[in-house]
């Protein structure tokens, strides 16, 4: 609670938290409050500019952009949360073990370095090509695999410094086993760096998922998502820029709120950085 209260003291963080709560609220209630169903076609209303009945305009099928944008937030949050959880689930245990045991660390880190030589989007594209078809689960696995190495790295380097602490030595001296040490003494101290990294991987995940959708290899186009909407709107970029404008603004605001939040958390949880920021 003190953490939350102190974070609200900074204007940028307050802005991020309010924005995030609003976006989450939209994602939660959108199917029941939007003016039109996301897939409702109205061919006589094709490519209408923003007006009172369609505040964000319509696309080439006459679908309401406002409704589709609001509903698109659902898949964005679903993907962001699932991909971050994937990275946490695999990244944290691998990172702890590599940080605690030098020999494991040596091998794993070499492999991680090599994996990180592949740009994220290219690696994600390759995984999507391997899986062979668009799909929500495939996107989660592809981007999860892409962001797990970063999580491993963060956990690894934090574990390296934690294991040198006096209390770890003390635990070892009284005969505590390695599993106990990792679970009860190392893991709790990893909480701050892991939370910060998870916040940033959320931001990167939804940007990555939108990029895959935009390229036409992400989730199936039948599910309204911001990336797919922007992909479909490309053909009409000059005639009907609103098709692209609004989903992009929502995507940018979501990513921005997570980046601001990640920054604020890092400043709060890592006192060494407070001097610089």
């Amino acid at each position, binding site marked *: 609670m003190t953490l939350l209260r102190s974070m609200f003291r900074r204007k940028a963080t307050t802005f991020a938290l309010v924005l995030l709560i609003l976006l989450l609220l939209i994602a939660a209630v959108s199917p029941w409050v939007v003016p039109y169903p996301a897939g409702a076609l109205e061919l006589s209303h094709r490519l209408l500019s923003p007006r009172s009945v369609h505040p964000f305009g319509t696309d080439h099928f006459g679908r309401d952009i406002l409704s589709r944008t609001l509903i698109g937030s659902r898949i964005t949050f679903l993907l962001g949360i699932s991909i971050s959880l994937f990275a946490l689930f695999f990244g944290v245990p691998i990172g702890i073990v590599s940080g605690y045991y030098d020999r494991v660390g040596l091998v794993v880190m*070499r492999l991680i370095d090599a994996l990180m030589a592949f*740009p994220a989007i290219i*690696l994600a*594209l390759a995984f999507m*090509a391997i899986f062979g078809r668009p799909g929500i689960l495939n996107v989660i696995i592809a981007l999860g695999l892409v962001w797990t190495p970063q999580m491993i790295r963060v956990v690894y380097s934090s574990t390296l410094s934690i294991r040198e602490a006096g209390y770890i030595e003390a635990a070892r001296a009284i005969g505590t086993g390695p599993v106990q040490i990792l679970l009860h003494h190392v893991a709790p101290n990893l909480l701050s760096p892991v939370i910060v990294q998870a916040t940033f991987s959320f931001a990167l995940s939804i940007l990555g998922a939108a990029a895959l959708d935009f390229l036409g*290899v992400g989730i199936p186009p039948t599910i309204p998502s911001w990336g797919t909407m922007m992909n479909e709107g490309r053909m009409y*970029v000059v005639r009907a820029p609103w098709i*692209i404008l609004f989903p992009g603004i929502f995507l940018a605001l979501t990513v*921005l709120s997570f980046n601001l939040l990640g920054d604020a958390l890092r400043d709060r949880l890592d006192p060494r950085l407070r001097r610089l920021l």
Partner: protein
Amino acid sequence: MGPYLLRRGAGMLVSCVLVITITFLLMELIPGDPAAVLLGPDATPEQVDALRASWGLDRPGIVRYGFYIRNILRGELGRSVFLDQPVLKMIGERAETSLLLGLLSLLVVVGLGVSAGITAALRPRTWTDSALLFVALLGASLPSFWLGLMLMIAFAGRLHWFPSSGFSSIFGAGGLANLRNLVLPALSLGFVNAALVARTSRSSMLDVLQAEYVTTARAKGLAENVVIAKHALRNAAIPILTVVSFTFASLVSGAVVTENVFALPGVGSLIVQSVLKRDYPTIQGVMLAVAIFYVLVNFATDMLYAFLDPRIRYR
């Protein structure tokens, strides 16, 4: 310098071998028979077998891995299934676009990032500082393809200042004027990547400004701009340089979406086309080339770093 170079060189070779192994293993993961997938349901078993044999798929994995490494050493990255051309040749033809786009974006990144970072560091915890940091973070939060499309609408669609898409070689007709086609892509790619450089420049400059030699320089009565340019900036440059070269590698190879938006014939658009057509040999070849490029740029950065800062060599 010698021992350091040898040690880092060996590390680079290990990275290359690992990168090659990863690209090999990734393509082994493809479920089902790629030959059957490619030929479609109408193919006869004989046709599938013939294609499998021509790809060496009828051999055990370890033999194929050996062949794969041998081919790479010979400079063969396989053959595109759809365009029926050597993958390396296709990458070569597209490298110019990607490299030029990377260089131009880097200009944007350095111009915006370093100047914003230094400006912020000179006025820490002021309104200017927070505003610049916020803009940097906003930039990092924008999807580059969205920014690209917005720039396209404004500067190509409405104002007609720049072409909206395509690019042809600066060595052909049009010459250097063809670079106009890369202005909007470079701006959108550069702006979203400038944030990291801005933050590094700021914190590195802040660190240096608190150093004792800066206080000494000021105490000697040197003009403030001399203190900043000669004493502070030089020492702050090394971490900035690292981030900049790291950014360059990701600009050249990670411009996938931007190249797609502006229909640029680069390496990034090649991999997107290959993924859409499931042209696995091309995907594999491009991935390998891009990752090796990244490893080489990293190696070059380390060497530059060691050259600029003698302390590194003795670690």
